[in-house]
């Protein structure tokens, strides 16, 4: 017996002790994997979840990431909100994605944070992964936001000379891993910081009693404001839930304080008002905003600059009326056009996006009065301005070369407008000379702040609705809608946000019939509506179709707009324009119903049989 031990040991392929040790270490690693997965995430994390702040491209709505190329734009700028009352320390920018550069190109990826250069790296030729972790100056986080500009510069080497301005490069930034992050000096604790921390996707947790129309209206107003600000809002009825999920960002809770407390929302010890309307509380480690009373003011307060005064954990706004645009025109600057001095080598484009609903009185722009400041040209060159509206080239105008300040007025023809519009203005320096011997010079140019759109036109179909609604309108709902607020809000808000103006006063009517004021009706279309939805079919003068399972019928009816929801409509808003009726499928598709009640559809492009 005494010899069997060593013999067995000698026959073993692996020493038992080594296997035991390996087993222990494997168990240790598995413990890390399952209990502390963040420890193997490869990321520095010296703070608990409530002391971290992180804003990704997805959080600000760039769900497809960000692309830099000759075909899109070689410069992109994003602004990411950051808390101000909880100081952001060690701010960093993570750029994650892919790069592709042509073989003979010299391309640099440059990053600026609030105008300060923080990163310059030459792109390697070929396709590569990008994983840059860039420390940011502490000062960029002090004003509550950081403006990150990502640029590609360089040239495509043509060996003898460079005759093209193309870079031949593509940079794609991952929407979920490209982010600004930092550590917080304290957990989020003020209303304005929690509002600033809201992501692109916001969940409204509806904890108020079913059937309560006041709460429903508050939720609808806030949801419309969030939607118009670019958030994607979802609704969750938590009235009957046991508790709230403690790992979800960007939740706003609506309901009485005691109901929220029952759900696990911890209001802490609020300072200031003893009976606040809005208050910051926590669910688990995360701070969430609670709207504790129904109010017409609170949604406006939370979605306008007024919220910047809320530097404590609770607030009770009583009045906050936003100043609305008025007059017979709007400046391009108010539409987001950068009117600062810009550098230009050959060409530069400014873009303005606007909704008719946000323009004074819902009027249509009829003219563009553009004022630009450009250097005086030499004899061999001239300045050109090209203007496009919704992808249609309206005109190309040559600027006279004898004055630095130039004015161009262009008519904006009717018929091209939609509810949402994109105006682009391109300034080009056109030269007689070209090729390799021409020196590339950078010029300073500026679209002057006095540039404006002149209003006064009238729309047709949906583009006429903003003008109709400008003096006020009623949102008519069946009272049954309030019984299932999560579903009703999902049906109503996307279309209501599209047709109503920014911070426009919304008057709700329950179970009423249309009166003198224009209206937006949620429910079955009136009898005189061109499109009817009944008995599982959608009918009009020229169509009789089985109804889709999920979708919306949106149509102009005498006195207003009727929105009829079928099933669970999606939240993708179609490009409403001059049509009067539209069937919107769950994915935002569908078709336009013509004035004669027929399906509007383009004939197919017939290929040449010969090839």
């Amino acid at each position: 017996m005494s010899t069997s031990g060593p013999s067995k040991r000698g026959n073993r392929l692996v020493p038992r002790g080594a296997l035991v040790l390996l087993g222990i270490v494997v168990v240790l690693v598995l413990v890390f994997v399952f209990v502390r997965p963040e420890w193997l995430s490869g990321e520095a994390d010296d703070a608990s979840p409530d002391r971290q702040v992180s804003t990704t491209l997805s959080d600000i709505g760039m769900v497809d990431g960000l692309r830099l190329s000759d075909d899109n734009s070689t410069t992109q700028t994003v602004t990411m909100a950051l808390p101000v009352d909880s100081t952001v320390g060690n701010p960093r920018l993570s750029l994650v994605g892919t790069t592709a550069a042509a073989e003979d190109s010299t391309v640099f990826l440059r990053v600026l944070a609030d105008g300060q250069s923080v990163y310059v790296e030459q792109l390697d030729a070929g396709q590569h992964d990008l994983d840059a972790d860039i420390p940011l100056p502490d000062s960029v986080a002090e004003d509550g936001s950081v403006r990150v500009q990502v640029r590609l510069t360089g040239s495509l080497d043509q060996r003898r000379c460079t005759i093209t301005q193309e870079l031949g490069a593509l940079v794609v930034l991952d929407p979920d891993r490209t982010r600004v992050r930092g550590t917080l000096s304290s957990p989020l604790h003020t209303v304005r910081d929690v509002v600033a921390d809201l992501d692109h996707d916001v969940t409204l947790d509806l904890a108020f009693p079913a059937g309560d129309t006041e709460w429903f209206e508050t939720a609808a107003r806030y949801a419309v404001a969030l939607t118009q600000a670019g958030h994607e809002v979802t609704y969750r009825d938590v009235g009957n839930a046991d508790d709230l999920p403690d790992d979800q960002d960007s939740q706003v809770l609506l309901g009485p304080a005691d109901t929220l407390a029952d759900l696990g929302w911890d209001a802490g010890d609020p300072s200031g008002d003893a009976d606040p309307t809005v208050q910051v509380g926590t669910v688990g480690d995360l701070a969430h905003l609670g709207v504790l009373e129904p109010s017409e003011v609170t949604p406006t307060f939370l979605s306008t600059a007024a919220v910047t005064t809320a530097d404590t954990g609770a607030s009770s706004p009583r009045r906050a009326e936003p100043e609305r645009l008025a007059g017979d025109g709007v400046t391009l600057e108010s539409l987001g056009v950068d009117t600062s001095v810009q550098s230009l080598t050959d060409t530069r484009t400014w873009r303005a996006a606007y909704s008719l609903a946000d323009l004074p009185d819902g009027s249509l722009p009829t003219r563009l009065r553009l004022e630009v400041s450009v250097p005086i040209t030499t004899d061999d060159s001239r300045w050109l301005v090209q203007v496009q509206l919704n992808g249609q080239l309206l005109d190309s105008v040559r600027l006279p070369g004898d004055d630095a300040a130039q004015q161009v007025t262009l008519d904006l023809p009717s018929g091209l407008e939609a509810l949402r519009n994109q105006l682009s203005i391109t300034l080009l320096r056109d030269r007689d000379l070209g090729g390799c011997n021409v020196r590339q010079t950078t010029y300073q140019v500026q679209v002057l702040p006095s540039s404006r759109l002149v209003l006064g036109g009238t729309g047709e179909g949906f583009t006429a609705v903003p003008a109709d609604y400008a003096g006020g309108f009623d949102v008519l709902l069946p009272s049954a809608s309030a019984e299932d607020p999560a579903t009703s809000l999902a049906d109503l808000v996307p279309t209501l946000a599209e047709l109503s103006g920014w911070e426009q006063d919304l008057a709700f009517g329950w179970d009423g019939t249309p009166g003198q004021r224009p209206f937006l009706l949620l429910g079955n279309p009136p009898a005189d509506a061109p499109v009817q939805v009944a008995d599982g079919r959608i009918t009009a003068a020229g169509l009789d179709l089985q109804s889709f399972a999920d979708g919306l019928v949106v149509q102009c009816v005498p006195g207003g707009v009727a929105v009829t929801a079928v099933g669970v409509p999606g939240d993708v808003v179609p490009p409403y324009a001059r049509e009067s009726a539209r069937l919107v499928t769950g994915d935002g598709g569908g078709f336009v119903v013509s004035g004669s009640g027929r399906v509007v559809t383009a004939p197919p492009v017939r290929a040449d049989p010969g090839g």
Partner: protein
Amino acid sequence: MTEPPPPEAVSDHFRSVDSTPAQYALARPPRVVNGFLVNFTTLSLLGLLVIAVFAHYAGDDTSRDLVVLPSAGERAAVPVRLFVTVFFVVFGCSIASDLRRRARVCGQLLGTFAVVILLVDVTAYLARDAGVQVPVVGQQIVSGMVAMISFPIVVLRNAHLPPPVELPMTGRIRWHAWPRIVVPLVLAFATAALVERYAGPLTRAMRDVALLGGIGPGVFLVQQVLALLTAGIGLVLLRRSSRRPYAPPVAVLVPAHNEAHLIAATIDAVDRAAAAYAGTVRLYVVDNASTDETIAVAETAIEHCPNLTGEVLVCITPGKAIALNYGLARITEPFVVRIDADTVVGEGCLARAMRHFADGGVGAVGGLPLPTTLDTFFDRARTVEVLVRHGFFQISLMGYDGILGIPGMFVAYRKAALDEVGPIVQGMNGEDTDICLRMGTAGYRCVSDPRAVYRSETPRTWAHMREQRTRWFRSIYHLSGHHRHAIFSSASMAGAVVLPLQLINAARRAMLVPMLIFAFLLLVVFHAVLPTLRWQPVVATIVGLPFLMAVLVCLLLGRPRAVLYVPEYLVFRLVRSYFTLAAVLSLIYPPVRPPLRSD
């Protein structure tokens, strides 16, 4: 009348006193190297876990490797230094010796490595301070390569190895051997740089499919281009060397230990080769303590040979070298061909090999040892290995007089040279390479002619393969110990250049399997911590250039069918790495004597 059945091989016929020479090797069981790999995995997991936790808590400025004064924000792709540290620690703990020796080996390996790290990192820090950007990966590669050099040095300093050979180094490297290596080396660097510069898309595409690159340090393409260029020179030299007919009387010496099952075929083949040879051939079979019917079978076979004369000598002291010296002492012919008892020489083998001796400077000539059959995985992998190693790289070494040794399976010696540098060393592995090295230091050259084809038995079992390869791979350390004065000497190119490179190559090969384990852990468990490591470099370490070179060599040597066996060869390279590790662990590391007590 029926033929009597051929005798069967005795059990473990491949084992002999040469398997583990008692003075310089230990017969360590497979669990030693298996245990090494398991312990390496364990310690690597722990080390990587520490790096992950450190990265989690210490912030983003950590390099994620053992880097002193790292550049801010720069991360390692692979924690090379952690790998080396873990490898050294596990190696030090796995050698068969007392605690003091283990501690000394660990201390020397880690101490040297720490000094190297410090020097490299401080230099990089000062360079950065002066405005010269040094990437952290560059620091890692430099320290990793130095570690690869220091490893064999520490092994040679601590292992009990054959004493230095006492032989005057009368030879001198021929002056034109230097330009034959330096010029191709410069051209190789230039070619590699040009390919990198102008064939960027191609090399990138190849890297993306794991045909180029790797996770170890290395210089892209230089080694392969150098080998191709020097092989071209070697081919020219080979043709010149064999252009004159030469057929002197030759003795064929066959040491045999328990080879009754093969010896008859071996003798028959020699007889057929003798028929094609213009000179006289006398066969000497030296039975070496066989316990089977080797003597009887050999005598019968010799009686049936019409083309040679021969006799069976009996050497009762076991040991292949002893048997060889026993036979050599009785040979009177001016040339002697040594073949193993399991080798079947080709018909033209003798005639082809002996022509090279027309040059009086040639001391030894070898051939191409193809496997006897292609039945097993080992046969097929060995086929490609032979083509690459003996059909190509030996020619490349010949291009600058750098052949280190000729395998004893078939080698022809100039008897005068043997007498001058002999006898064949006993009690260590690599006696065939040893005699070539000694001839080199005495001024003789070795030639390897792939047209002299012979067939040699390939191990049929894992145990046999383990015995053979452990013995072969151990020999580099025995040889280095025995010829330590030849290293970097001017006596022979083999000692000056090839032997040191082979030592480093042995270290690299021993690290290959642990390196792949390490890379696997990084990819599967710790990918988020070091996300820049992709699967391609890991696979390229196994496939990559070895694959391309193997395919190229098979085609160049006119054996396209062998390309089919290249995948098995690539797997076999991992097996070789495993046995290389086993070999270095089978050396004897004598206990350190405790200091004398003064009581």
